[in-house]
């Protein structure tokens, strides 16, 4: 897949534009990425980037509240936004003849969002409601605790959506200050994929964004996480879940680390890449065989995200009723140790490689998916193009996978979490937990 480098242009205000042609449908997908997320927050303001993301749908002087949603709806667009620990992103996929309108909307809200006090108050309850929806999910509750325990210094431990108490304390002025600081052309980049020549797509985007002024990029937050010196454990007991759950989180390197591609590959070896359960695919994966085929679990998933700073390699299993946590944890650890000790044989490597590469092809066969994937790789610096990342995955050897497993799946760098369903716990709404879903979507 080499040769799919996007056309890149930097504007005088610092904004970098990336464009790719995709001619199979008459649409354009526009994604604006800001280098701000959970990592840029301090205790007392957790959830601020995500809150701000909601406020960017609440109007500018040129486009009053509701304008953007109704305009894009009228075009049949798909549009949304999300915040994660590293970035905040806004996107719309529109019919190609509406591309200029989409550009106008994004250029406008880069600096002109109103963030009106009454809208902050109205949206606060929406965000609390979003958080309360997550709190109904045992996987979220446990993951939030595991993440908080896994980091002692780095802001990744705070999650993204923020604590309910801090969401309630967020002020309009604080949000506006955050906006003014981070929403600037020099702290953003734009990805465009669609039905047009890349040069022409860039020209239109340059026209839309070139007059947006801004400040120099803010300093990169620095709170390096010290090495972990031994296993950490956390148990969450709640009545609000029926099945027991085990999560293991291992300290893992940042996206630019040479091990990152191999860690992505290991998620495929362990769970088929996207997790396995009642779907037909992913059932040849090691954890499906060891846990689900063995009648111990209903779903398993291994995940590794490409992040700016060292983060976590996650393994999660939902257990069948009555199965002891300790049994499942032991089997997961045995499988991880086996990966660290023995290279995959040729047959498994061939299968895993095919799963990895096909798994990249499917989302990039949609224009929206291609734009997202390129933007995601750029956000962490993992690669300059989808092809570059694809080539790194293609080149992985059995030794690469084994070495990445040996470097990552160590006792001293893991945090183990158990969710224990407990029918005797009284209702206690609103516990203070702090991990958000990885892609926290508006």
């Amino acid at each position, binding site marked *: 897949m080499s040769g799919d480098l996007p056309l890149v242009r930097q504007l005088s205000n610092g904004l970098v534009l990336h464009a790719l042609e995709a001619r199979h449908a008459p649409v354009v997908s526009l994604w604006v990425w800001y280098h701000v997320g959970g990592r840029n927050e301090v205790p007392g303001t957790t959830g601020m980037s995500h809150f701000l993301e909601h406020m960017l749908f609440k109007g500018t002087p040129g486009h009053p509240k509701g304008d953007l949603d109704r305009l894009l*709806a009228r075009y049949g667009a798909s549009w949304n936004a999300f915040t994660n620990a590293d970035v905040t992103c806004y996107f719309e996929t529109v019919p190609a003849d509406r591309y200029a309108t989409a550009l106008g909307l994004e250029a406008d809200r880069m600096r002109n969002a109103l963030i009106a006090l009454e809208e902050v108050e109205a949206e606060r309850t929406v965000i609390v409601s979003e958080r309360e929806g997550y709190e109904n999910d045992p996987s979220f509750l446990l993951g939030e605790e595991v993440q908080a325990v896994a980091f002692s210094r780095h802001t990744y431990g705070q999650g993204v959506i923020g604590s309910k108490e801090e969401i309630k304390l967020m002020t309009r002025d604080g949000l506006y200050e955050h906006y003014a600081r981070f929403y600037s052309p020099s702290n953003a980049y734009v990805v465009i994929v669609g039905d047009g020549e890349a040069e022409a797509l860039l020209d239109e985007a340059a026209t839309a964004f070139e007059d947006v002024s801004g400040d120099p990029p803010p300093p990169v937050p620095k709170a390096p996480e010290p090495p972990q010196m031994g296993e950490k454990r956390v148990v969450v007991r709640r009545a609000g879940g029926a099945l027991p759950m085990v999560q293991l989180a291992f300290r893992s390197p940042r996206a630019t680390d040479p091990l990152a591609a191999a860690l992505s590959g290991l998620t495929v070896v362990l769970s088929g890449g996207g997790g396995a359960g009642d779907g037909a695919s992913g059932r040849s994966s090691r954890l499906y065989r060891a846990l689900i085929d063995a009648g111990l679990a209903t779903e398993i998933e291994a995940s590794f995200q490409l992040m700016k700073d060292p983060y976590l390699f996650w393994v999660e299993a939902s257990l*069948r009723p009555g199965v002891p946590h300790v049994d499942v944890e032991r089997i997961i650890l045995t499988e991880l140790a086996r990966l660290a000790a023995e290279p995959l044989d040729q047959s498994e490597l061939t299968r895993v490689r095919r799963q990895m590469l096909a798994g990249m092809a499917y989302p990039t*066969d*949609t224009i*929206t998916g291609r734009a997202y994937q390129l933007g995601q790789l750029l956000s962490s610096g993992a690669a300059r193009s989808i092809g570059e990342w694809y080539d790194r995955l293609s080149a992985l050897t059995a030794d690469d996978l084994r070495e990445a497993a040996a470097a990552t799946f160590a006792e001293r760098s893991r945090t183990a979490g158990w969710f224990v369903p407990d029918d005797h716990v009284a209702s206690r709404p609103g516990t203070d937990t702090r991990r958000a879903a990885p892609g926290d979507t508006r």
Partner: protein
Amino acid sequence: MIRRTRTQVGRLQVAVAEIPGLRSVASLLALDAGQLAEPRGRSGVARLTAQTLLRGTETRSAQEWSEGLDAIGASSRLDVGGQAALFSGQCLTGDLRAYLRLVAEAVLHPALAAAELEFVRQQALAQIEEDKKDTRAVAEKTWRELAYPPGHPFHTRAVGDEAVVRSTTTEELRRFHSDHVVGGGAVLVIAGGAGAATAIDAVNEAFAEWPAGRARPAAAALPSVLSATVRRDVVVPDKTQCDVVLGWHGLPRNDPRYVAARVTNMVFAADTFASRAGNVVRDQLGLAYYVFSTLGSTRVASPWLVRMGVNPENVTRAVGTTFDELRRMHEGDIAEDDLALAKDKLVGELDVALESPGGVAQLVLEAELFDLGDDHFERYPRELRAVTKDQVVETTRSFLPLDRYALAVAGPPLPA
């Protein structure tokens, strides 16, 4: 514009939509083996059968079959809905032949072995157990129990009734497989990078044994009416938010009023940001993170549902506000711009769907399943555009009555 090439293999109806330049293909095989096909009182048999189809064939063990699927990197699953069991998947274009062979083997020659049924049964029981503490699942289960009488195919969720799941035998699976999976109607849609001739050749080879002749008709669903307002609140302990399901019985996809119903749904609540309910409940009042409605699409009337996630303190107001919007629609208070927006969105989405092989496959599948005609893709946008305000008001009054609905709330206790 979508162009279809169609053929028939035995009773299997096939449509291919080529999208040049893509590396993959999406495949949708809809088998007339959904909840409507289940024997009366045997809810869960369709899903148990579907899941057991994925657990080995006459010639390959479950592990060998899944290794074959993963060896080509295919992404695939088999889900049971109201009308169909849908075998959906995506594979690289060059692997289409291999993928279809695997699907055909699972569907036409499954092992349906006792040990595999037992595995699937235990997984289903675990799912039922998990759903008891899941507010969304509890709300939907409760709504179905309120809206349909026992024995109706839609009285339970597809996962089934616990007693049925515990008691289903391999003989029952074999009968369901014979009568409905291969004995009923079936539609296969392929969309993506494969050329039509290549795809049809692969289909002919993989599904050559598909039976011919007339499909076994599914039994008619029990008649059901919502003759009053029914509501049930279910406390799910140790939760923070309530899930709310409000709904009616809907109308069949082939009802001549269905297109107007789609527009009505969009005006009312289909989209959290573009429809009236979402606009008021979320954007103006901040009562919920999500509010949306879905209109079922099957050959019989299937649920027309509004769902929302709301703090228990706000349930009464959020539901009341939704009804206020509905009442305005009953009274004809529908702004021209709201109607135009709904139609523009539904028409515009047809163009945007072309960006994805899965999106194209879904559009083609609907056209094939409901025999919407050769000119459907030219006609459908015009039909959407032609819907009038009077039709929307009439549809609202006919299908979304204010005094006959079912409402289920699941979550923490509601305030007194």
